[in-house]
Structures are given as structure tokens and as C-alpha cells.
């Protein structure tokens, strides 16, 4: 069977099994499905790397009638990163999301939701059809909202509801754009659209889809739902929500602006998106500086890091390095942010809360997860030799070669701001007075450490991921208007 199909069906099947079977069997089935999905992601990536990117037309119907699934370098990189994050999250959850610790509701709901989320992510990464992408992010939103609400506390439910409203409004805006595109071209396949004859409604359609997707990605000023939602969920859920979920809508945006409709990417529109990104960097960082709870700091940092991704948009049509750079930023953020939330989860379980003063001196009892947090902070602040640094470096180089050094500023300043807001939790962790707490085993602390190490390794061994990304990289098309 084609690995692409496995990527979609296996996690969904696992989710179903986790609902249907009794608790003990359910978890085993979920973990088995997860292992299979990791293998499928690796298989797809190796096919792409070997120069034979897999592609199938569902049901044997080619576009425009049918739907194509295909993997390119971008898909492969995201699939593998997602697989790494999900594997770590599920490993961590095996212990913390057990009924004895987290209560029966979470123990029951977590596994199917997590696997459904994974299936939706994979679907978004490999779909080549705008409507299929809609279904993918809708499924993703539903699973994500479920994960936010899973704790069942009033604040969590309110956060989930707020998230839901933003997500629904975003989906409808996106859907309106899709309708316009179909009305104009009779096709929704990305490759077909790339070779379409431009129509007058395309700009409006792109604007609507972009507005909808940025609301789902939580780009400033649509970010208000994100911090309470990500901070309110249990830690493994937050890890998925913060590290992976925004990447899905971001990838769709990236594909729309560089693959499907690059000719509509006017400098003014790109500048607006870039400006919103810069605003998000500043706003998210200031928000993170003002928080006194680690989970909120990390959640606000996601707002800022999402801003980075959009601040690169004005450079996309101008310099080749911007595209790989922004993907490196996205990948390393995924690894680092998941590591942070998993580490925070361990500290909360040990210290009973996530206020900064409650974490003082925890590094003594949990050196490995504290070190993981520090490594992840290095990645987020874009310091060498992490993948975050490499992405930042590529984007800055792109900005200068394109003669638009203004867009290098948010990269430089954002790194400083990140260092500033991540310093406080680090200083608290490494304070001398150590509370005696029951620390999790070394094997469990190693999970976030492995993820954070992945963020560093992305910078150290950047040749392979870059070569992978080069498969199917869209050519730059400077628009002269």
C-alpha cells in the first residue's frame, strides 16, 4: 500500500480503535498506530529524498475531477518533524495521560484526539486540492478544540469556545475564497491553478483565504485566543497545539502564495502580511515578558514565533533562501516548542504549578528537562548552532540580497526579545534553593531533551534537510507591478 495512504488512514484507524476498545487495549492500539505512522512518514521522506516523490489520485480520478495527494520536500520535512514531535508527545503521555494521574475523561479522550490531530496534519501536508485542505484543517481544528477542552475546567472550556469561534470564522472565510476560485477556474488543484489564466476575482479569493488562515494560525491581531487555549490544555496537548497546529494553516498559506497563486502576490499585500508578522513578534514577546506563569510565557512565545514566519513573506518572491529559511524556522520552532511544553509538564507535575516562583531551583531535581528547556531556548532565540539560527541566518541573508534589509530587523530583534523572555524561567530553574520534589525518571526526562536536541541537530546537520527541501521548491517569481 502507498505510504501516503497509510499516513492518513492509520492514525484515523488508531483513533477509532482507541475509542472502541477498553482502556488497556486502546492505548496499545494507539501506540501501535503511532509507530506505523512514524514509519510511513519516514518512508515518504526517503522516497522524496531519492527523487521519486509519491503521488496518487484518490479513487483513480485525476484532477480537476478527483483529488491528488502528493509529497514534495516541504511535505516530507513537515511529516518527519510531526512524526518526531508526535512520537515524543505520545511517549510522554503514556505516563501522564494515564487514568490514575489525569482522570478517566482525559485518559479516554486524549488518544483518539491526538491521533485524529495527527491524521489531519498529515492530510494537510500532502493534499494538493484546496477543498481537501479545507477538510483537513477543519478536522484539525475540531481535534485541537477538543484537546483544549479536555481538562473540563471552566477556563479551559471558555478558551476552547473562543478558539472554536475563531477557527470557524477562519474556515468560512477560507471556504468563501475556495468558492470564488472554483467559480473562476473550475479547478481547485494547486498544480492546475498554478498554470491557470488569471481572473479578476483571484485577488479577493486569496485575500479571503489568507484572512481565514491567519485567524487559524493566530497571526496578530487574531492571536487573542491562542495563549489561554495553549496554556489551558494539559502539557502534552499544549505541545501538539503550539508546535504543530499553527504549522498546518501556515503551510497552506505558503503553498497558496508561492505555488498556487504566486502571480497575485503583490508587494503591497506581502508587505501587509510582513508588517502583521513584525507586530506579532513585538506583541507576543512583550506579552511573554509580562507573564509570571511559564506555560503562558511559552504560549505567548508561540505568538511571537508565528510572527517570524509571516515576517518572511515579503521576501518570498525575491530570494530563494527566504523560502528554505522560513521552513527551517517553522521546523525548529516545532521541535523546540514541543520540548518546552513537555518539560513544563514535568515540572508542573512535580511542583504542583507553573508560577515562576514555584519552579525555583527545579533544575537540581530535574537537570535533564531543565537542560532541554535551555536548549529549546537557544533554538527559539535563534542562537547558533541551532536550526533556528540557520533559518534566521538564511532569512537575513535573503533580506540583504533582495535589498530589503528592513525585513532582517525583526529576525535580529526578535531573537533578543526571545532571549529576554526566556531568561526569566531559566534563571528561576537554575536558582540555588532547590525544593525537594519527586522527579520523573531519567528516561522520561530524556523525551523533551531528545526533541530539543533535534532542534539543535537541525542546525548542525543542515545539509540533509536542505537537500530534502530542495525537492519541489517553487521557483521565485518576482512580480513587477
Amino acid at each position, binding site marked *: 500500500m502507498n505510504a501516503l495512504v497509510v499516513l492518513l488512514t492509520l492514525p484515523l484507524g488508531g483513533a477509532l480503535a482507541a475509542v472502541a476498545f477498553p482502556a488497556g487495549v486502546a492505548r496499545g492500539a494507539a501506540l501501535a498506530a503511532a509507530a506505523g505512522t512514524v514509519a510511513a512518514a519516514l518512508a515518504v521522506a526517503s522516497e522524496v529524498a531519492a527523487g521519486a516523490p509519491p503521488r496518487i489520485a484518490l479513487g483513480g480520478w485525476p484532477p480537476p475531477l478527483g483529488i491528488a495527494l502528493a509529497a514534495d520536500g516541504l511535505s516530507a520535512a513537515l511529516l518527519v518533524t510531526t512524526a518526531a514531535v508526535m512520537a515524543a508527545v505520545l511517549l510522554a503521555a503514556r505516563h501522564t495521560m494515564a487514568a490514575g494521574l489525569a482522570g478517566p475523561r482525559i485518559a479516554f479522550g486524549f488518544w483518539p484526539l491526538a491521533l485524529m490531530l495527527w491524521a489531519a496534519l498529515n492530510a494537510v501536508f500532502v493534499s494538493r486540492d484546496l477543498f481537501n485542505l479545507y477538510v483537513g484543517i477543519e478536522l484539525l481544528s475540531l481535534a485541537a478544540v477538543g484537546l483544549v477542552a479536555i481538562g473540563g475546567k471552566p477556563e479551559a472550556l471558555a478558551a476552547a469556545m473562543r478558539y472554536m469561534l475563531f477557527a470557524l470564522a477562519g474556515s468560512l472565510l477560507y471556504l468563501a475564497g475556495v468558492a470564488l476560485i472554483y467559480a473562476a477556474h473550475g479547478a481547485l488543484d494547486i498544480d492546475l491553478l498554478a498554470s491557470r489564466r488569471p481572473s479578476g476575482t483571484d485577488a479577493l479569493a486569496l485575500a479571503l483565504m489568507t484572512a481565514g488562515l491567519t485567524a487559524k494560525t493566530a497571526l496578530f491581531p487574531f492571536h487573542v485566543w491562542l495563549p489561554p487555549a495553549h496554556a489551558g490544555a494539559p502539557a502534552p496537548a499544549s505541545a501538539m497545539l503550539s508546535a504543530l497546529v499553527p504549522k498546518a494553516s501556515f503551510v497552506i498559506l505558503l503553498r497558496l502564495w508561492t505555488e498556487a497563486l504566486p502571480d497575485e502576490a503583490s508587494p503591497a499585500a506581502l508587505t501587509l502580511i510582513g508588517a502583521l508578522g513584525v507586530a506579532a513578534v513585538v506583541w507576543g514577546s512583550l506579552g511573554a515578558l509580562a507573564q509570571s506563569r511559564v506555560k503562558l510565557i511559552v504560549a505567548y512565545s508561540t505568538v511571537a514565533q508565528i510572527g517570524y514566519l509571516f515576517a518572511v513573506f515579503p521576501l518570498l518572491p525575491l530570494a530563494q*533562501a527566504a523560502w*528554505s529559511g522560513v521552513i527551517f524556522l517553522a521546523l525548529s520552532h516545532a521541535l523546540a516548542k514541543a520540548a518546552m511544553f513537555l518539560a513544563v509538564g514535568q515540572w508542573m507535575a512535580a511542583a504542583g504549578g507553573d508560577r515562576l516562583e514555584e519552579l525555583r531551583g527545579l533544575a537540581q531535581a530535574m*537537570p535533564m528537562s531543565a537542560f532541554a528547556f535551555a536548549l529549546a531556548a*537557544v533554538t527559539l*532565540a535563534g*542562537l*547558533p*548552532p541551532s536550526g533556528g*539560527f*540557520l533559518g534566521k*541566518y*538564511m532569512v*537575513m*541573508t535573503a*533580506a*540583504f*540580497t533582495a535589498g530589503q*534589509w528592513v525585513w*532582517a530587523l525583526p529576525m*535580529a*530583534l526578535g*531573537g*533578543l526579545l526571545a*532571549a*529576554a523572555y526566556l*531568561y526569566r524561567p531559566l*534563571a528561576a530553574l*537554575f*536558582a*540555588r534553593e532547590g525544593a525537594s520534589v519527586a522527579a520523573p525518571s531519567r528516561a522520561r526526562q530524556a523525551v523533551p531533551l531528545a526533541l530539543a536536541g533535534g532542534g539543535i541537530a537541525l542546525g548542525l*546537520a*543542515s*545539509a540533509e534537510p*536542505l537537500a530534502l527541501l530542495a525537492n519541489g521548491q517553487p521557483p521565485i517569481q518576482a512580480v513587477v507591478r
Partner: protein
Amino acid sequence: MTVPLPVLLLLTSLVPAAVTFFLPQEAHRLRNALSLGGALLKVALIVAMLFAVAGGASYEAGLTPAPGLMLLLRIDALALLFVSLSAILWLLTTIYAIAYFGTKPQLSRFFGFFSLCVAATTGIALSGSLFTFFIFFELLTLSTWPLVAHKQDAPSLAAGRRYLLYAMPCSAALLWAIVWLESATGPVIFAAPTDFGTLAPNAQRAIFALLIVGMGMKAAIVPLHGWLPAAMAAPAPVSALLHAVAVVKAGAFGVIRVVHDVFGMDRMSELGLGLPLAALASVTILWGSVRALGQREIKKRLAYSTVSQVSYIVLGISLIGPFAVIGGLAHLIHQGLMKITLFFCAGIYDERAGVKRIEGLDGLGPRMPWTSTCFSLGALGMIGLPPMAGFVSKIYLGLGGLQSGAPWVLAVLAASTLLNAAYFLPLLYRLWFREPAPEVQGDERAPALVAPTVVAALGALGVGALAAAPVSPLAWATLLAERAWLP
């Protein structure tokens, strides 16, 4: 498969770092063996290479992870000058640190970062391109912070915070300059002259200023020096590392690379960049000395003295003349040896006699003769008394000033020498001529602390007295200057 020499040199401290992190606190023997073994191996490798490089050989190892990115390690004569300093002083500091810490807590963390710090310094020394240099420069920042904050008490944490507060913006400036420069010139390789192509002269000046900000923070050039005196809260071996082996030296070395290899002497004079840098260095020399006068804590006085002394190197390199450059390069080594001696002594006074402030030094000379003799040698060297190392540096710097048509340098040197004497001589007076306070006890029953100190002091004496020998730092600096000026 053979590992290229530069990589091997890096591995001698990277491998101990990686292993040490995972050792339990109790594994003292294994940890010490790792640190010492790595340090010894590195010194041996360097000695083996010295002769080859003197004969004109150079070693290279490179890798290109992405188009336009080039990681390049290269051993040339300048690299070897710095790496031999850091390797030898690292060996001494390791011996000293093992004795200093004994069985105190959190040693695996300390020695892990300690080795990482030296690995970063080695990387800085061996970097063959600006990008590579930046990577190791940042790695140095990151691995130094846990060392500065090692004691984890309020002053240490404040010092660590201050360090990052200075380091982060300055490294952003450095990155900005590198990206700006390389987007116009392509990767900047130290061995080949940089082609500035289309960059306007003012853009070149701006890039130079940003590069100097980035390097100057580590070199503690005024006004970016504030972190260094604060960092004296760290344990004595860390101070030695900061002031002599790694951090400050890395900054000064960076300035040398920027002036010498990125811009080149011709372009420096063409753009008129030498004089402003020399002026900045002179201000730093005087300001550091003036501030040192007012300090009552030994380590703080020494720290301000470093601020002043390191800018001798910058001054020498910025005067753009053979003699001045020789003086600056030789001072890179001389200052390292003298300052590490002084900080080792300060650590011993603190550990063995509980003396932190200069009042406590009264009459300690006869009680702690070895330490106090070393301290006196270091201090006299700093003042520039012949035949100590500092004298050689100052002579060459003064000659260089005359040669480059900047006689005012002599005034700066004279003023600085007077100030040096003013803040060091009272300490010597207290050590040897004051009556000891009855409550102060002191002994030297710590051979592993005293031995490296004596070796460092002898080194500082030796490089001055034997400056004319064919293998002295001065000879090496002369070799470098000859290669730069003689076709």
C-alpha cells in the same frame, strides 16, 4: 578514515565536554582524567604543529552545509598563536580548578561547560571564515554563562544576567554586520582578501563599526566593558578563563581578525578606520586604569586592569604598522600569562586566607611567600618593569606609535604605566611591608593551587626575559608581521 588535525584539536575538548555532562558527581577521578587528558593531548598536538606552521604549512578542514554557508577550520600562524596560548593556559587552569573545587557540588556541570568553553575558544582560534568564527563566538557566550553563574547565589546570577545583557545585543550587531557583509561579498574567508565589490565606503565603515561592537563587547572595550568587573563574582578558575584564556581574548582576537584579515591593512588606512579604533582603545586603556584605582576588592581591581590591558592589543593592531602589530600580538600572550597569574593568586588568597579585599593583604607576603612572589611578578609585569613581559609589549607599542606617526601613543602608554603603578604598587607594599593583622591566617598547603600559579608566573617572566629567543611569542608575532608586510 583520518580525522583532519583542526578537527582533532577541537575534539580534544569537545569529547571531554560531552562525556563530562553525563558523569555523576562522585566520579571525580574519571572527570579529572578526562579534563586533564584532553588538555595534555591538545598541548601535545599543538607543539607538534608549531614547527610545521613555522615552516609555512597550514592545515584545513571544511564543510559546506548549505549554499553560501561555509564552515572552515584552518590552522595558520595567527590561529596557532592564540590556540597555543589557550591550550597551555587551559591546562594550568584545569589543574588549578580541580584543586580549587575539590569535592564541591555540581562539578560535572562545571567541568562540562568548562571544556565546552575551551572547545569554543579553540574553534574561534581555528575559524577560517567569518561565519565559522561567529558560530564559535556564540557558543562561547552560551557556554560561559553557566560558568559565570556557577555559584548560583544572587551576585553570581546578577553577573550572569549582566553578561547576557551585554552579550546578546552585541552578538546581534555582529550577526547583522556579517550578513550585511557576506550578502555583498560572499563568504568571507580569512586566508583570502575580501572583495568588497559594490559596497559603498560608508557602508563598509558601518559594517566595521558593527563588527567592532560585536567583538569589542567580549574584549571589554569601553563602553561595553561593564559586564567584566561584575563577573568577578564567579569562582577564581572562571575568572582566569574569562580574563586570560577565553572570553576577553576571543574578543581581542576577533578584533585582530577583523582588522587584519577581513578588512586588511590597506583598506583600513584607505577608509580611515585605524585612528578611531586606536582612540577608542586609548580611552579604554586610561578609563580602565582610572577605575581600577578606586576598587577595594582585589578581583575587581584586577578586572578593571584587564579592561585596560586588553585594549593594548587593540591599540597595537589599530595603529597599522609592523612594530605596533608585533606589540599587540605579543601582548595577547603576555597579558594572558600575567593576568592568569594574578587571578590564580587572588583565588589562593581567597581560598587559603579568606582575603578578598586589599586591606586583608597586609603582611601576607612572608606567610604565603610563593603566592605573593608570583603576585608581585605579575603585577610588576603589568606595570611594565623590565625584563617582564609587559615591558616588551609596551616598548613595541611605543615604537609602533612613532612608526605610524602617532606619537601621542607614547603619552597614553606613559599615563597608563603610571596608573598601573598607582594601583598595583600599594598592593605589593601591603603584602611585603605592612604588619599582618592578627586575625588573618594564611597558608599555602595546596600544592595543586600553587604549582600552576608558579608555572604561569615563570612563563610571564620567561616570555619577557627570553623575548629574543627564536620560539618566544615575540618571535612568533614578528613572524606574523613579517608575513603581513614583506611581500
